[in-house]
């Protein structure tokens, strides 16, 4: 085999255990991030009375900036949780896999491989779901606290820009922490 090239099995293993999210998870992140970044436009328009056409020049770049920060935070939080969840779930997945009748005929190495694969799936799913939940809730909380409490007497454009930027910054900061 030429140096630097992997077999199909090695490529599959790399994909399964890689920190890089799969295409499906990537799209999930992008869609969720864009949705969460765009939702603040509704209260800005209806409650802060910021006309869409007049303030569109602020809404569009801030939405894109926030979406980028949210995707970044999703990935970081997922990465930091995945290994911990893998270790926590392995015993339970091992028990569940061993009890399944179709696995009783497998050899120990085959069973271990199946357990690792299943645990990896569970960890991936849980870390993805928790990362999306945590980041969405935190973003909304910070945005609402800033826009409708701390900055409520400021100019509306300043209010919106600072609220969304600060919420994105807090997300990115906390996601890179321990």
């Amino acid at each position, binding site marked *: 085999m030429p140096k630097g090239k992997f077999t199909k099995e090695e490529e599959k293993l790399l994909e399964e255990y890689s920190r890089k999210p799969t295409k499906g998870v990537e799209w999930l992140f992008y869609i*969720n991030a864009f*949705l*969460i970044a765009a*939702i603040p436009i*509704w*209260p800005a328009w*209806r*409650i*802060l*009375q910021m006309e869409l056409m007049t303030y569109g020049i602020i809404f569009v770049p801030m939405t894109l900036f926030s979406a980028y920060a949210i995707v970044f935070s999703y990935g970081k939080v997922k990465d930091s949780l995945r290994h911990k969840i893998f270790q*926590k*779930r392995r*015993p*339970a*997945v*091992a*028990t*569940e896999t061993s009890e399944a009748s179709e696995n009783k005929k497998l050899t120990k190495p085959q069973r271990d491989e199946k357990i690792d694969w299943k645990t990896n799936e*569970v960890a991936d*799913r*849980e870390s993805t*779901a*928790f990362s*999306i*939940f945590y980041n*969405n*809730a935190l973003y*909304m909380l910070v945005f609402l606290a800033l826009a409708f409490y701390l900055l409520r007497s400021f100019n*509306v454009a300043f209010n919106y820009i600072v609220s969304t930027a600060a919420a994105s910054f807090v997300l990115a900061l906390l996601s890179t922490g321990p």
Partner: protein
Amino acid sequence: MIFYVCYTCLLLLLGSGSSRAAEEDARLVALKSILNDHIVDERDLTIQYRIYNVGTSPAIGVTLQDSFPEDRFKVVRGFHSVRWERIAPGANVSHTVVLTPVGDGVFNFTAAQIDYDVAEDGRKQTSHTSAPGERYILTSRDFDRQYSPHVLDWAVFGLVTAPTILVPFAVWYGSYSHYAGKEKKA
């Protein structure tokens, strides 16, 4: 000396006569008040005038006159100029005008003028109501931003935001509770 004494007595007599007349005259006290808590552009503004006769004679031919610039206010209901034939002593009357402000900004609400006869002899008196003073007229947008409850808007916001938080939480919790139970058994 005698001339001086007579002159002084004459002055005193005349003075006491006029003060007795003043005590028997009508005396009006008038209030002009804005009933709105907030004055908003293109929304009704209610102004109330209340006139009290605190004198001992009826006030005759009472005329209330007020004015508002046409480029700042439109009249919805009521008149700027009102007349009452008689206001009995101890009685009071009120009058209300509904206006609509045109444009926002500060406006100085000045006093209205009241003209009346203080007695049957036709002596005239001019007085003024109280003046509400400078008030700020808000735009509809600013008023909605500050004071409107936006119940429906918040409800829609909640409906749109809730799934983005609850759905991933439900997915995570479903997996967590499934395997957490099995961890305990293991």
